[in-house]
């Protein structure tokens, strides 16, 4: 029987996993299957430069055709997978037929959480996940003057920044009492609100969307639960994602809001790995170290993919990279290292008014995560320092204005 690695999901994780398996010496066939018709591309620019029209599609592709060819990776694009047969060791394709595998990787990513209020299917309502979503929104921008963004998390805020930059009037609706409540401590939520308001965005907190009001089949306004209506030409939805774990669940693999994998990236079937947004993995940086964790980031997709590839080729390594994330809004870069928790003690260093500061998250007196705004030095230092979880004196940390590394050495 042919030794064949089949990778389901031509995502950041899928692409990385396929190339990593080859680099690690896998000599069999590699088939990378993607549901979308486009070759694997980078997702972060979709809500940033690509949406702005500043970055062409060719510039956000992950690998060239020649690179796939050279690595001996066969691409099957526009080919959704409908089922996994673990006994016959095949995947069934929506187009009919099946592909046999001896090792299987699931890098199916996440699906966008869809708006579930009346009017959500009106023309002019856009979700943000895939290239097609960004293209559809981009095509609607020229005739639009007013946008409502549903969701004040990363995707919503990045979209708001781009739309505002293109001259649209923008209102952001966030159901919670502050922006990005899951990702950030209150101080950073408040700072982001000020940032967006200073650029002319109308930020509505505690806003409950009741319906999208339509006229002639098109969006006309966002109707709030308190009776207010905000007139708009388009609605952009960024209310999170759900892991695409249904193929795994249907195949009888262990699933719990994501495909459960071990520290090596293997699922409950050791012939099958999973990586990226779809894979809930034991993360040493979680508040309860080793707790099953779902991370939605490019860096995690890359790191997990490398780990999963290593396990599939029989050279297992442990996934223990310090997690990091970034978000660009206007000309501000927000960078996060480590995994924060709502109970962390927060120490501010730097100057929020100057747009250059970091929030140190301390857990049991030790550095657990760092959120940096306009301070790449702190972010880079944090990613190195977090490996040792150094003890920090909060009193001193708040006063200290030197490098983060010095603080940890002396503190």
């Amino acid at each position, binding site marked *: 029987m042919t030794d064949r690695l089949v990778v389901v999901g031509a995502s950041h994780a899928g692409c990385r996993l396929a190339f990593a398996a080859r680099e690690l010496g896998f000599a069999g066939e590699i088939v990378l299957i993607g549901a979308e018709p486009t070759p694997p591309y980078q997702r972060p620019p979709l809500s940033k430069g690509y949406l702005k029209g500043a970055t062409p599609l060719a510039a956000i592709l992950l690998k*060239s055709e020649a690179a796939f060819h050279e690595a001996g990776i066969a691409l099957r694009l526009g080919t959704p997978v409908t089922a996994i047969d673990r006994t016959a060791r095949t995947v069934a394709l929506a187009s009919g037929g099946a592909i046999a595998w001896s090792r299987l990787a699931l890098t199916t990513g996440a699906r966008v959480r869809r708006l579930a209020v009346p009017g959500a299917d009106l023309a002019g309502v856009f979700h943000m996940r895939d290239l097609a979503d960004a293209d559809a929104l981009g095509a609607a921008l020229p005739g639009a003057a007013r946008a409502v963004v549903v969701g004040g998390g990363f995707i919503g805020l990045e979209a708001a920044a781009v739309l505002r930059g293109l001259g649209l009037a923008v209102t952001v609706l966030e159901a919670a009492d502050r922006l990005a409540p899951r990702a950030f401590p209150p101080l950073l939520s408040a700072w982001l609100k000020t940032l967006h308001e200073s650029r002319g965005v109308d930020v509505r907190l505690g806003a409950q969307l009741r319906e999208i009001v339509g006229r002639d089949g098109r969006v006309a306004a966002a109707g709030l639960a308190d009776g207010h209506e905000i007139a708009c030409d388009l609605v952009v939805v960024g209310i999170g994602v759900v892991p695409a774990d249904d193929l795994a669940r249907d195949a009888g693999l262990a699933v719990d809001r994501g495909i459960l994998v071990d520290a090596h990236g293997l699922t409950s079937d050791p012939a099958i790995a999973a990586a990226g947004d779809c894979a809930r993995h034991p993360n040493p940086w979680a508040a309860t170290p080793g707790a099953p964790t779902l991370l939605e980031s*490019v*860096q995690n997709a890359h790191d997990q993919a490398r780990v999963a590839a290593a396990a599939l080729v029989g050279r297992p390594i442990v996934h223990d990279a310090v997690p990091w994330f970034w978000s660009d809004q206007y000309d501000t870069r927000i960078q996060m290292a480590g995994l924060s928790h709502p109970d962390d003690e927060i120490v501010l260093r730097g100057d929020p008014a100057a747009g250059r500061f970091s929030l140190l998250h301390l857990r049991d007196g030790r550095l657990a995560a760092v959120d940096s705004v306009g301070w790449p030095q702190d*972010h880079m230092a944090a990613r190195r320092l977090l490996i040792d979880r150094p003890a920090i004196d909060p009193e001193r940390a708040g006063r200290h204005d030197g490098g983060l590394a010095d603080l940890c050495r002396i503190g």
Partner: protein
Amino acid sequence: MTDVTFILRDGSRRTLDIAEGTSVMQAAVMENLKGIDGECGGCLSCATCHVYVEAIGTGALPPMDEEENALLDGVAAERRPESRLSCQILATPGLSGLVLRVPERQV
């Protein structure tokens, strides 16, 4: 088009013909050149496209800004005077003949 040569970790050389305006990182990642990761896609967030400049062509490299300088402090391999982030080097005709060495590690 701009010819940029990479000296890989095993000492071998590979030359890419890069379209004007494309970053050296982007071209290297797209062609799967081993040793250039470029995880963040070139938005100055990751410092995984570190290179050592061995020789420049006829033109000059773009000057290093504060952010690149800051990120270079965080590269995984040794930072040297000739260190640059390849995402900040856009291909221009004058840069043809540029030779870059891939560092021992990026993460």
